[in-house]
């Protein structure tokens, strides 16, 4: 009996231990397959990148942080780094905040002013996006910036709440125990009563707010009513008498990835002024009324990444000042405080036009969630790994007229009396016919200062026009010298914005009446001081894309420069510049809104002999430009169904809502279903070399030009399988390739406002400047800067570059060599929830900002990969939505931003072709074709026309079912976040991301054995990827000794310990069971 009991005990114990052993084995396997991600989140190191530093093979000598961020022993100085981030974030906001109204010299306020802050957002500030460009970690609040002089990071951790119901949480899990920093605040005395009222209300569920919040399809800004304020403290008004020097009201509208605002999408019962999310609620308007009760000096701060409908505030004589402050990041409130107290004179210009009703933008007629009427049964392609909804589209019938291009062009035509511009079509605020003064609140590029400036174009601009005799590549620039004089009584700086207008023929190629061509910014000018600023304009950007131009070689479409009078002007924004041009043209001033000064305009008669009409029909690379995106236009498939807005007839072409499009064209249906590329199986590929032994190693490629012959040797060493791994798994962990001496490495991360890796979780812990886990500031998270519109609004190329440089420095400390950012899509309308990640509605402003950022980052070995190339015009159904547009629109607005950034012509020299070395594609399609799979976009335009060389990764898990089509297009790899352990736990064959393919094949190392084209594309993709690594600081750590050594982080030790322990015990118990069973038998 006892033997039986023992048998049961041992058998049961063995069963338990077999279970523990089995679970630890399978979960261990799961952990290993996700080791890279686990390390990032736990701050552990499971695989160590090891290289030996020798005199012959020195390490960490190619890119280094500046000395001011290093201690005497060469280790990183976290305190200095954070202090510099605070300073930069402060300066960005001080230059990027835009003063829109300042009556009665309400601003600046003097130090020592007794100030009341109103609006719950004055207490719970909006600093970043809840998803995307978050403001991470401890921060400096508006209250602190206005009244304190030292950070309180220990008690100011930023929080974020996700979109679509994701739960809130602290952006950095561990409380701050590091250094605190002194700063110079505004020196105001704040009304503590109101601070307490808002603090009490913010503790309630109804008014809980976070520093990072999302947009919402049904929006409620969460502003308490006056009665609720009274409920918190019935006597709060009594505090106004003491703190009545000024009342500052903060109004906020957040932005974030994955969700949009929608037309009419407002919460019930809040009495939005226009029934739209960007208009003010009654409670917000009441907060402003309360400010009037409190003080004679009412100041409104607008915290947003899009146009807020503040026309009523502009017209309200009791609202003295309005300033846009964006989502200013962790430290930007210091810059806001600098302006409010007059330490800095504001110098920002608006990143987008601010309209009375955002719905008045023609783009808004076709925004949101629209699906083909016959999606079901017609669209057979699934929604992909992320389960996007098939069949979504947006007809961008506004054509060229997006953002200020619409409002200013229609204004121009109104004054000119052409194109039925003054009809009622598209009117929202106008009484009667369309009227600029009613429809627009503040124009693009507009901004006030505490001083005034005089702009004087000095003589003739310097034109430099030439053509490369070999390639025909044009080089055509005009440099405007503008003398800027501070004519006021305060010191300040100002943007110098050059705009242009090309001659328009009614019925001809569409042309906006005004467009930004380039900009610079002055230094701080003392009262009476002058500075002459040179602004170099690339004349390509005043050329127009004529889709119907017959190139005479069987192709159609190219850039043209119509002969005629071209106008250029310098102005305080687009509207001001246009008025100057109109004045120069002698247009009726009585019909104009604002005043024009012909002296600030310049006319140039551009004849064929000066610049030929087709000068820009060849790109800077010498590649012939022709239509590449015909399938972007709905009419290409189903002619005549869409009418695009034309200034020839504003009334007749103002967009209707295309809400119920039906797919009838089979080519269109096939394209939407992903039938784009047919895999070949029997090509002769024998001349394509793989797996050669040429004796070249990756580390030797540092500094080698892209076309250096050594690349062929290196690439021929790769095996076909290795190249397929590099294409298939594009990061964050990127597979190694033994044949060329690379090892699996975690290379990539977000974001445009800072590297999303804590200092103490560096992916390059072997760097001499690495900041150890023991550093008191180790859990500082570098993603701290403002949302992108703030950077754009600085109109300061130097500062934009400095932001890139600093992020490059951050990347050295965090060991990330490729950045998935900055965001570079242009704002199609205010309702795009992700506008906070993108700079502006203007491609030149956006493109310059991204270019400067990327060039700055690359100086420290960080490859910036702007996203999302291209056409991410809305977050609603962003996964595979089809934006339909003309190719002219695509090229002159959406793509121009990328073109400027990728060409980076400003930094070209005779010996060096500067450029960005990375990008991330968009989830969206362009017309019927996925951007990831568009050969016209990814190869013809991006690579051939613009000369892009670098890492071109998809967005996360995007189009994994189109593996061959994506490779064929010119995209160089997939974003496969979370995948690691390549060739072992993660293989081409077993990775679930690629298990579903539209075409009837299965991904394997043999898949393209018989496809010559794809093998060549694969070699090209590998070349571009690896080249981008060689220009990055990844090369700091590579030499002939580089290898990966496995480490034993606590999680690995734990599961392995459990495996060993349970295994040993299971065997022991099993043996005991057998022995007791045998005893039992003997007993029997």
């Amino acid at each position, binding site marked *: 009996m006892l033997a039986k009991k023992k048998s049961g005990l041992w058998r*049961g114990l063995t069963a338990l231990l077999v279970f523990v052993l089995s679970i630890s084995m399978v979960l261990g396997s799961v952990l290993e397959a996700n080791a890279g991600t686990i390390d990032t989140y736990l701050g552990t190191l499971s695989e160590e990148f090891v290289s030996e530093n020798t005199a012959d093979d020195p390490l960490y000598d190619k890119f280094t942080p500046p000395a001011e961020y290093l201690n005497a022993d060469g280790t990183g100085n976290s305190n200095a780094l954070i202090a510099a981030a605070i300073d930069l974030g402060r300066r960005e906001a001080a230059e990027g905040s835009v003063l829109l109204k300042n009556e009665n010299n309400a601003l600046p306020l003097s130090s020592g002013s007794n100030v009341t802050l109103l609006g719950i957002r004055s207490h719970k500030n909006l600093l970043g996006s809840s998803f995307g460009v978050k403001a991470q970690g401890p921060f400096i609040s508006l209250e602190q910036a206005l009244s304190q002089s030292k950070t309180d990071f220990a008690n100011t951790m930023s929080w974020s709440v996700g979109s679509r119901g994701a739960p809130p949480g602290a952006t950095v899990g561990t409380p701050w125990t590091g250094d605190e920093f002194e700063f110079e605040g505004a020196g105001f005395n704040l009304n503590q009563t109101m601070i307490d009222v808002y603090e009490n209300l913010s503790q309630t569920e109804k008014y809980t707010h976070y520093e990072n919040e999302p947009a919402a399809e049904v929006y409620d800004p969460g502003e308490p009513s006056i009665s609720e304020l009274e409920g918190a403290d019935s006597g709060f008004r009594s505090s106004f008498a003491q703190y009545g020097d000024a009342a500052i009201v903060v109004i906020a509208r957040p932005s974030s*990835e994955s969700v949009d605002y929608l037309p009419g999408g407002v919460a019930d019962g809040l009495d939005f002024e226009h029934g739209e999310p960007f208009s003010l609620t009654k409670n917000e308007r009441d907060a402003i009324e309360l400010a009037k009760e409190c003080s004679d000096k009412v100041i409104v701060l607008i915290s947003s990444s899009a146009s807020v409908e503040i026309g009523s505030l502009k017209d309200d004589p009791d609202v003295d000042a309005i300033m846009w402050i964006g989502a200013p990041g962790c430290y930007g409130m210091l810059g806001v405080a600098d302006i409010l107290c007059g330490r800095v004179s504001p110098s920002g210009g608006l990143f987008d036009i601010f309209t009375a009703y955002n719905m008045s933008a023609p783009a808004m007629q076709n925004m949101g969630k629209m699906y083909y009427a016959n999606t079901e049964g017609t669209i057979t392609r699934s929604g992909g790994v992320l389960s996007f909804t098939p069949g979504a589209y947006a007809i961008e019938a506004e054509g060229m007229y997006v953002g200020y291009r619409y409002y200013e062009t229609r204004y121009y035509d109104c004054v000119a009396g052409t194109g039925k511009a003054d009809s009622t079509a598209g009117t929202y605020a106008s009484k009667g016919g369309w009227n600029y003064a009613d429809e627009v609140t503040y124009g693009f590029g507009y901004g006030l200062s505490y001083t005034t400036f005089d702009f004087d174009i000095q003589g003739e601009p310097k034109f430099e026009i030439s053509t490369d005799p070999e390639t025909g590549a044009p080089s055509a620039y005009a440099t405007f010298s503008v003398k800027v004089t501070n004519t006021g009584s305060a010191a300040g700086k100002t943007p110098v914005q050059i705009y242009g207008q090309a001659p328009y023929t009614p019925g001809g190629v569409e042309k906006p009446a005004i467009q930004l061509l380039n900009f610079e910014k002055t230094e701080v000018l003392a009262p009476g001081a002058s500075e002459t600023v040179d602004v170099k304009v690339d004349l390509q950007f005043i050329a127009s894309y004529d889709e119907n131009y017959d190139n005479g070689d069987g192709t159609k479409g190219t850039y043209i420069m119509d002969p005629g009078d071209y106008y250029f002007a310098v102005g305080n924004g687009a509207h001001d510049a246009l008025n100057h041009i109109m004045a120069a043209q002698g247009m009726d001033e009585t019909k104009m809104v604002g005043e024009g000064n012909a002296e600030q305009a310049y006319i140039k008669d551009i004849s064929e002999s000066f610049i030929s009409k087709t000068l820009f029909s060849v790109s800077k690379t010498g590649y012939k430009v022709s239509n590449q995106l015909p399938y972007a236009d709905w009419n290409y498939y189903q002619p005549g169904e869409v009418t695009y807005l034309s200034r020839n007839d504003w009334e007749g072409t103002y967009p209707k809502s295309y809400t119920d499009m039906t797919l009838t064209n089979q080519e269109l249906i096939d394209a939407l279903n992903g039938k784009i590329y047919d895999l070949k199986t029997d090509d002769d590929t024998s001349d394509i070399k793989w797996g050669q032994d040429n004796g070249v190693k990756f580390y030797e490629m540092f500094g080698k030009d892209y076309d250096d012959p050594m690349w062929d040797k290196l690439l021929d060493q790769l095996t076909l399988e290795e190249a397929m791994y590099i294409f298939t798994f594009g990061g964050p962990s990127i597979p190694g390739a033994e044949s060329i001496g690379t090892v699996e490495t975690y290379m990539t991360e977000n974001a445009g406002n800072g590297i999303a890796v804590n200092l103490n979780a560096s992916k390059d812990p072997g760097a001499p400047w690495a900041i150890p886990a023991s550093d008191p500031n180790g859990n500082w998270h570098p993603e701290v800067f403002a949302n992108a519109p703030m950077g754009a609004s600085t109109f300061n190329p130097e500062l934009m570059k400095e932001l890139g440089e600093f992020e490059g420095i951050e990347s050295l400390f965090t060991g990330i060599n490729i950045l998935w950012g900055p965001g570079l899509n242009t704002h199609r309308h205010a309702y795009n929830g992700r506008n906070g990640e993108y700079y502006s509605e203007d491609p030149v402003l956006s493109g310059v900002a991204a270019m400067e950022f990327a060039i700055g980052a690359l100086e420290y070995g960080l490859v910036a990969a702007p996203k999302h190339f291209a056409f991410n015009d809305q977050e609603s159904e962003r996964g595979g939505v089809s934006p339909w547009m003309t190719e002219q629109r695509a090229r002159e607005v959406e793509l121009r931003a990328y073109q400027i950034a990728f060409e980076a012509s400003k930094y070209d020299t005779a010996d060096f072709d500067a450029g960005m070395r990375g990008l991330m594609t968009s989830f969206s399609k362009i017309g019927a074709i996925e951007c990831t799979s568009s050969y016209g976009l990814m190869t013809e335009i991006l690579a051939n026309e613009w000369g892009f060389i670098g890492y071109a990764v998809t967005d996360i898990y995007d189009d994994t079912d189109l593996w061959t089509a994506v490779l064929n297009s010119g995209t160089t790899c997939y974003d496969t976040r979370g995948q690691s352990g390549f060739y072992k736990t993660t293989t081409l064959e077993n990775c679930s991301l690629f298990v579903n393919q539209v075409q009837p094949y299965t991904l394997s190392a043999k898949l393209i054995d018989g496809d010559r084209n794809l093998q060549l594309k694969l070699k090209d993709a590998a070349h571009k990827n690896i080249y981008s690594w060689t220009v990055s600081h990844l090369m700091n750590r590579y030499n002939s000794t580089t290898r990966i050594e496995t480490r034993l982080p606590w999680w690995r030790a734990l599961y392995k310990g459990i495996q060993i322990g349970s295994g040993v015990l299971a065997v022991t118990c099993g043996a005991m069971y057998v022995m007791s069973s045998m005893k039992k038998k003997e007993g029997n």
Partner: protein
Amino acid sequence: MKKLNIGGYLNILAALLGLVGTILTIVSGTMSVDNKLTNMTMIVAAGFIGVVLCALSVYTPTRFGNFDLVGSVSIWGAIALYCYTFGAAVGQRIMLIAGLFSYNSGNTIGWNVFYVSVGAWACLLVGCVCLIASGFFRSVKETA
């Protein structure tokens, strides 16, 4: 045939749970083309073999008595196979789950896959618990 005791009933329950868990694994791996499980044959085969082993662990004690070697090895094998089915599926759902609880919370199909997967895993894990428990108990009633 000897009458079943508590261990035997637990093994029957484990077999049923394993069967349901394996079927749910098949469902979760086929309900969306984008969420197919790679290596499905192996995963499902492991589950079904586990069920067979459970059945064996019910049957053999009726022939050879309690705590017999074949039945015991069947229990241990079934536990290992259930764990394999569970672990192989979990490994392929990690990124889906990470997305659902962060950037891709609107993934309706993904949530459905997740719920079915959780059902499968719960069945398999509870099945393992039943098998562990049965290891301590007699499977059949023995006559004096």
